[in-house]
């Protein structure tokens, strides 16, 4: 084979690779778009408002969109977006208006126990519970606890009661996704699920040295 034929053959191969690659991505994009449209149509036709559970709850924000797509989340671009979302979440966190981070642990225990609120069988007036025991071990006396989140037994005792830990915990309860974009934990401050007072009380359950959690 002469040099020039070899060269033009190489060029041909490169060119066809590029063109076919382009065609492939156009086709898969078109397929993805039409699949996504079918999916969105399905979602829009499959739900209705019931009580306080308004139909708008299926409109995703950027955070929910990202975390619904594990495949994209695992890519470089997904990772970049996750870091940006964490920053945005962090920026929305409001520190306690009265400067108090620690409320009443007894009330905090009741809030941690309650998994009520925000469903279509609840009223808007019903205080939302933290639902903490659904996923966390907290006070060892409560044997009925979930394991989706880590154990919080001896939370303050093990970590110390530093200003850093207190602020971190406040932030984490308010918006867990400020630290981990796809954390399983609801954004209690962001969606105003818990009031400032409720969060102060849950903070006390974890960080008051007198709380049974720290004995």
């Amino acid at each position, binding site marked *: 084979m002469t040099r020039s034929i070899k060269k033009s053959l190489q060029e041909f191969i490169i060119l066809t690779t590029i063109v076919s690659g382009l065609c492939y991505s156009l086709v898969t994009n078109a397929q993805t778009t039409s699949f996504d449209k079918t999916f969105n149509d*399905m979602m829009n036709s*499959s*739900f209705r408002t019931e009580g306080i559970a308004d*139909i708008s*709850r*299926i409109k995703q924000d950027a955070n929910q969109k990202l975390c619904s797509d594990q495949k994209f989340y695992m890519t470089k671009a997904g990772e970049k977006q996750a870091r940006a979302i964490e920053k945005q979440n962090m920026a929305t966190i409001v520190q306690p208006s009265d400067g108090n981070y620690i409320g009443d642990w007894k009330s905090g225990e009741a809030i941690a126990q309650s998994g009520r609120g925000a469903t279509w069988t609840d009223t808007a007036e019903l205080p939302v519970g933290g639902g903490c025991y659904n996923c966390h071990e907290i006070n060892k006396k409560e044997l009925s606890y979930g394991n989706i989140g880590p154990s919080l037994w001896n939370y303050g005792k093990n970590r110390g009661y530093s200003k850093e830990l207190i602020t971190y915990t406040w932030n984490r309860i308010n918006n867990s996704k400020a630290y981990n974009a796809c954390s399983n934990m609801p954004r209690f401050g962001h969606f105003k699920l818990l009031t400032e007072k409720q969060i102060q009380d849950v903070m006390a359950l974890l960080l008051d040295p007198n709380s049974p959690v720290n004995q």
Partner: protein
Amino acid sequence: MNFISKSYFLLALTVLPFQGFAQSTSDEIAKYREMIADGNPSELYEMAGEELWKKPAGPKNTSLERCDLGMGPGVVDGAAARLPKYFKDTNRVQDLESRLMTCMETLQGISAQSVIDAKFGVGPKKDMDAIVAYVVTKSKGQKVNVSVAHPKEKLMYELGKKAFSFQGGPYDFSCASCHNAPGKRIRLQDLPNLTTQEGAIVGWGYWPAYRVSSGQFWTMQQRINDCLRQQRLPFPIYGSDFTIAVSMYMAVTANGGVIQTPGLKR
């Protein structure tokens, strides 16, 4: 088990202190399940369902005996094991409940909308519960055998897979938040990992089931409905494509597993 002791167990069910029951361990639940396995209250629903299947009803005063659940008119044995599936006459993939609505509408003249609009456990939905109990019992012990050979079945499976991970609402929850890993619990309630075959069969293979805590028989439609309520999402319309897509995803993932419906659940 004779009639008297069976009645005793049914009675025991109604007076059991459910609060304490919910606090007990999974092992105790298993023991309890074994104890009353011969007296699963679902049997009452099955018997009522068989009657409803055979009794002429609706404006057309016809029974459901000619209903095609996918294996030909009137074939009930093994039909539930193959659902959801694509039906040519409706040109859609249907689960058991949506297919029964089609039969009620075409054979009996009972509008599907009247079933969709009814509250769970009352009126036409109560009848539906019983008929579902009857049909699924006829697949008990068989293997889940749901096909994705038709393009619409394949599409429904893919839509279900995506729906399973769809986060929304004020809690950011999706099905995957609780059901995508082994060994997870909410409080003491074990959560099957619905993304694997062995986990999916625990979910798909045991529902519809009699729920001891509520004293009700729940179809899969109702089970999915209550999951979404707890996810804080809006109300999934009975028999909607979302509910069928998620069912399709679970069923296909559970393929090959043995069906234990109607199950007995907390």
